[in-house]
């Protein structure tokens, strides 16, 4: 199945408020502003720009593909260059590369580091404890899940009281228990404090440095940066709002982003519009149980107004794979008459002729059903239950 746009954990996030994943270079720029040492570097989106960046940085550089997926190194997306010419050649190879479905549009060119040791540091939101969790390990540079599984004693963790915050004693406890080399402890303590500060100041759900390196020069430096921002908090971070950029290649997902619609493309032919993440997920399940294949996840959200329904339908109807639409609404804060009006407006505007199966229940359901019965064209059919609507939609998609 297609991977969703932006957001760790895909559909999970649709029920949790969306998250904004940053590119490595964006994370490093934010780290630098928070006093966390990062190698000097520049962004480039052409081979020539990469060469110019390498010339300005001087010495050996690393050219790194900027994609929001792991395994870049193995895919050849990270290359060491001795000269600016080499940096240009590497950038030419890396730009446009497809790394597990992610096309590289940008590279980050940074000064190469002389690594003595690789550590791991992160602050994440622990959903189960409802507290921030700080983790530190001397076994960095590798898959930290593997470390947690095979040598749990190498991973030091501490929960933080969100009201009193991260204190120096937390940092000391972590460096002693993670087995950080004595000469690097001071640098790591300082970075942990700054990392926690960045975690709270930026309203992040995750800040992760893997590897956090101890260099030959004796410095502790963040060699990578993973930052995930809580979208619910973007209203107080207008600067981060600018980072919210399209990372998807898919035309429907891009359109959905522009229109602010919560949409994830799947690989079937039954287009789905519902309200509330739980009901939409349940609708996908029921369509699959009826033998059909959902084309997407689309949550029109709480309080869907006619305009929002129009925007959602525009996204769905732009997908040529969609053979039939299933609209499954259970109104609470959403009012069924608003949904019905939105459907009529969208059909008026877009002139869709594909079959549309509608199930409306809940707030103002009678009014909503009346509007559709009286005014909707013949390709719109109303079904009384979610199950019957899903079955009808699957039959129509199969041409029964």
């Amino acid at each position, binding site marked *: 199945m297609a991977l969703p746009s932006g957001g760790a954990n895909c559909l999970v996030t649709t029920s949790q408020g969306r998250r904004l994943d940053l590119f490595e270079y964006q994370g490093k720029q934010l780290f630098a502003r928070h006093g966390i040492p990062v190698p000097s570097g520049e962004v480039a989106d052409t081979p020539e720009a990469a060469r110019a960046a390498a010339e300005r940085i001087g010495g050996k550089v690393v050219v790194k593909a900027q994609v929001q997926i792991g395994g870049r190194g193995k895919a050849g997306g990270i290359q060491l260059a001795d000269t600016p010419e080499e940096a240009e050649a590497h950038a030419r190879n890396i730009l446009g590369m497809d790394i597990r479905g992610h096309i590289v549009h940008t590279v980050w060119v940074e000064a190469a580091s002389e690594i003595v040791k690789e550590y791991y540091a992160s602050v994440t939101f622990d959903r*189960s404890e409802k507290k921030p969790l700080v983790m530190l390990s001397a076994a960095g540079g590798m898959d930290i899940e593997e470390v947690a599984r095979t040598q749990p004693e190498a991973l030091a963790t501490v929960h933080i009281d969100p009201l009193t915050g991260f204190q120096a004693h937390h940092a000391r406890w972590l460096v002693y228990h993670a087995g950080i080399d004595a000469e690097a402890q001071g640098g790591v303590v300082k970075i942990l404090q700054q990392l926690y500060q960045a975690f709270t100041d930026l309203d992040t759900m*995750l800040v992760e440095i893997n590897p956090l390196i101890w260099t030959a020069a004796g410095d502790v430096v963040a060699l990578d940066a993973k930052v995930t921002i809580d979208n619910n908090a973007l209203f107080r971070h207008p600067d981060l709002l600018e980072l919210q950029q399209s990372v998807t290649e898919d035309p429907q997902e891009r359109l959905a982003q522009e229109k602010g619609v919560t949409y994830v493309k799947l690989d079937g032919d039954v287009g789905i519009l519902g309200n509330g993440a739980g009901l939409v*997920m349940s609708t996908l399940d029921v369509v699959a149980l009826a033998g059909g294949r959902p084309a997407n996840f689309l949550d029109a959200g709480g309080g869907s107004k006619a305009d929002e329904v129009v925007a959602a339908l525009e996204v769905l109807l732009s997908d040529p794979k969609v053979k039939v639409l299933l609209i499954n609404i259970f109104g609470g804060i959403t009012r069924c008459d608003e949904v019905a009006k939105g459907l009529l407006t969208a059909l008026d505007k877009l002139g869709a002729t594909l079959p549309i199966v509608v199930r409306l229940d809940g707030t103002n359901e009678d009014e909503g059903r009346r509007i559709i019965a009286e005014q909707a064209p013949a390709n719109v059919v109303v079904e009384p239950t979610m199950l019957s609507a899903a079955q009808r939609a699957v039959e129509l998609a199969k041409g029964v």
Partner: protein
Amino acid sequence: MSILVDKNTKLVVQGITGREGAFHATRNKAYGTNVVAGVTPGKAGQDVEGIPVFNTVRDAVEETGANTAMVFVPPRFATDALYEAIESGVELIICITEGIPAHDMMQVYTHLRRGSQTLIGPNCPGIISPGRASVGIMPTQVFNPGRVGLVSRSGTLTYQISKELAVLGIGQSSVVGIGGDPVVGSSFIDIVTRFDADPETDLIVMVGEIGGNEEEKAAEFIAANVSTPVVSYIAGFQAPPGKQMGHAGAIITGSSGTAQGKKEALEAKGVRVGTNPTEVAQFAQEALAAL
């Protein structure tokens, strides 16, 4: 009986003069809920369909004896509204607002859990005790008085399952939408505990979805502590495994958060899990018949 809201509820609605606040406060009152006050700063002295408006929650509580607050305030002001409700001393706070930052909620949650007040939500549809009181945005026509306690993370799915129950002639003692956010004031375990202690609740229906590990924790808890029978539904079997950025999350919970994982965790503890809303209603009917 019922849990959390009933005829003794005296409700103050924060954000009552907004479009949604006014609409739903009025509907709650029409259902029979004792809506005693509303709050909107600067609008003291006005009224919404006869419900008096105060400037502050404290004023409202002092004047009317409100014991329950419902928060209908936009997300950027909701954190303040939650602290205001907590400090007013009301026993129960129900936060409908969607979109409150997670860091704010971590702090509110930590503060709240040091005291004895109860928070439901945020990002929840509220609570209804059919025939007694409705606090929130639920479409009341799908609920009937009965002996099933329903608890859910999803609003619309709650309505769907209640409708399926209604088709089979099954009503509810109370229905609690705990909210879909990563940090909510009350967990499945908190609400299941209340239902288990309620003599008028014979069966608990627990409605979960992908993400987090609250269903898995509840499964353990139910097996060890709950004598009332439980049936469950989990949404999201068709959700594709997503990319995950960073690896810290999976380490902590030790749980995949998938629908299949949750279903297996519940079934391992003897909780039947329906594959769709219609089937879970049938399971509920069978469980009630077996009592």
